[in-house]
């Protein structure tokens, strides 16, 4: 045992310096040159930080595009999913209630058009995005509440739609915070 004890201790200390000391510090140094300087990328409105681009925010008012439901109530220091199983009866009741709420706030929308993402909780509870369909189905409501033309609101969604990566990989998406900031910026 003694043959191994001292070398084990020594190599542990040395590797702690290398792997836990030097390695993350070098990454942090390089991180200074990234968008957000390694502190996270923020979004500003009227010169004030109103959130992080990557962190989904709670939007419940009719004048804003709603985010997806969050099992963590959008607490960005405790993100989590609902972990409800697909056959859970109580869970399905919750989803049904969300559909009813959505229909109530978006008169004229038929149930069959509602994409499931708008009534199901995201994995992190902090999903910053919607699919283009999830945003577009809310356009009529927003145009009406804000007294804007459908075309204008539609334009905001389209100009903020991010295509699949390199046009080839993965889904298209729309950042909810960014389109809501774009809506507020119209008010000037």
């Amino acid at each position, binding site marked *: 045992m003694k043959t*191994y004890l001292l*070398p084990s201790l*020594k*190599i*542990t200390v*040395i*590797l*702690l310096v290398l*792997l836990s000391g030097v*390695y993350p510090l*070098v*990454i942090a140094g*390089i*991180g*200074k040159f*990234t968008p957000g300087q*390694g*502190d*996270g990328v923020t979004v500003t409105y009227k010169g004030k930080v*109103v*959130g*992080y681009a*990557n962190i989904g925010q*709670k*939007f419940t008012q009719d004048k804003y595009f709603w985010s*997806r439901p969050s099992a963590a109530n*959008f*607490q*960005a*220091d*405790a*993100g*989590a*999913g609902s*972990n*409800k*199983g*697909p*056959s*859970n009866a109580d*869970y399905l009741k919750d989803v049904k209630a969300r*559909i009813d709420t959505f229909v109530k706030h978006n008169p004229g929308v038929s*149930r069959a058009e509602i*994409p*499931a*993402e708008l009534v*199901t*909780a*995201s*994995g*992190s509870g*902090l*999903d910053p*995005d919607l*699919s283009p*369909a*999830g945003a577009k189905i809310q356009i009529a409501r927003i145009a009406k509440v804000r007294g804007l033309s459908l075309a204008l609101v539609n334009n905001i969604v389209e100009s903020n739609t991010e295509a*699949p990566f390199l046009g080839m990989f993965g*889904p*298209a998406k729309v950042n909810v915070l960014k389109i809501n900031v774009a809506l507020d910026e119209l008010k000037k």
Partner: protein
Amino acid sequence: MNTELIGVIFMYLAMVILAIPLGKYMAKVFKGEKTWLDFMAPLERLIFKLSGIDPNREMNWKQHLKAILTISTIWLFYAFFSLLFQGHLPLNPDHNPNQTPDLAFNTALSFLTNTNMQDYSGESGVTYFTQVFVLMFFQFVSAATGIAAMMVVVKAMKNKVTDKLGNFWDFFLKSVTRILLPLSFVVAIILAFNGTTTSYKGKDTVIGLQGDTVHVSRGPAAGMIAIKQIGTNGGGWFGANSAHPIENPNYLTNMIENISIVLIPIALVFALGYYLNKKKLAWIIFGVMTIGFLATAIPSIQAEINGNPAIAHLGISQPGGSMEGKEVRFGPAASAYWGVTTTVTSNGSVNAMHDSMMPISGLGQMFNMMINAFYGGVGVGYLNFYVFIIIAVFISGLMVGRTPEFLGRKIEAREMKIASLIALLHPFLILVGTALSSWVLVNFPNANWSVKPSAWLNNPTYHGFSEMLYQFSSASANNGSGYAGLTANNIFWNFSTGLVIFLARFLPIIGPVAIAGILANKKFVPESAGTLKTDTVTFGMMVFAVIIIIAALAFFPALALGPIAEQVSIK
């Protein structure tokens, strides 16, 4: 074909295309041949000199095991006490508290063993010190230990009689400096440029557009996320793991992280081929693993894209598939693909909540962990496969009436006993654990614990049972993912899974290393017409059959009560 499926296919192809040259490179590293990372050599020499280690002293298999067990014991105590007193240690900007003893026990064992089951949430359950100086450190060294153990077995497969099986410290350190650290560095930089945080600043408080106050957790996450994937660890910086939008900001990072999950496990199979100059054997092993992988990946992707039938009954549309527990930026195909890759390897990171996935996906994920050898963990995945090879050699030898031989060594009673015990240990731990938890739940639902057993489960009936079965499968496979609805941070779960994790890591390292060491000492029998050839498709099918029979017989009843029953009953 849509962009989501193309993304998944691209990930698979990119992974294989990268794994082949990486395997070649790793074989060179362990042979001591020239590589382009030789500039690390002075650093390695310095580390050996300061540690008082002679990297050229060859060890036999017992000495290897002594080294592994000694250093692991030191790490265990270091982690346990750091977590226990983390609240008083530096680098704690968010003022997070100490871990309770049972949680520290579970967390220390979990990270020591490359499992990374997390009964805490990264935002509140650990500090920057314990994240970086304990957990991330373990993500490097536990992976390096796995590779070193595999190298002992590989070295023993060479065709000469010897008890000299290389030097543990040499395998271990080179795994860190030549493989894990450089790859992690590249991945961390890519993450940083895509929005993953790298600075040591604590939580930020912002007032959102609607006027709500939000506290945003941050920290030096990029480095840990890189090694969590590269080293098949899986323990994330944040509680939501790679579903968290800072931990995995976009589809590019998702591809990079997902490729990293499977890269080294597959590369090691090719490394074996190059190292032993038995490329055909490597391809047979890769082929068997791939069939197992596809058999679970395809149904899962299909099920998630098709969506939840129970939701369809509510009258809405599911253009994005089943979206509960998933993120829009990844979509159902990439989430299902990740779920399978993270369970065929012993990674266990998630980019969507497995608890909310379709029962078919859950079935595949649990099945993968129950087999625990299709691709497998860094190093140890191959060790599990090695056990199955030994059993297959023995059985096919008996079937055709020849002496069972593997690579010129007779497989005899002693090796078979060890192999059988190791192969049976895994079902034993999973099934006994699940049975015990079910028994406690049914008989003592209101036991006076901090969390009553009746409050353990997040879902009723079959799915609730699956939560417990998944937890023990994950613990015994050293995977670390979870059906996260299970309330696991309490004495029963912290202790029981901690114990399972410990046994399921060290016995499957000790067993194969012992077998390999014993075999290497035996007389070498040159290949003849009477030899059972192991690098053939027939033998590959034999190994596959052995794996399926052992797993199917052991686990089918439990799976029938969980995901299969749920799948049949969901409407």
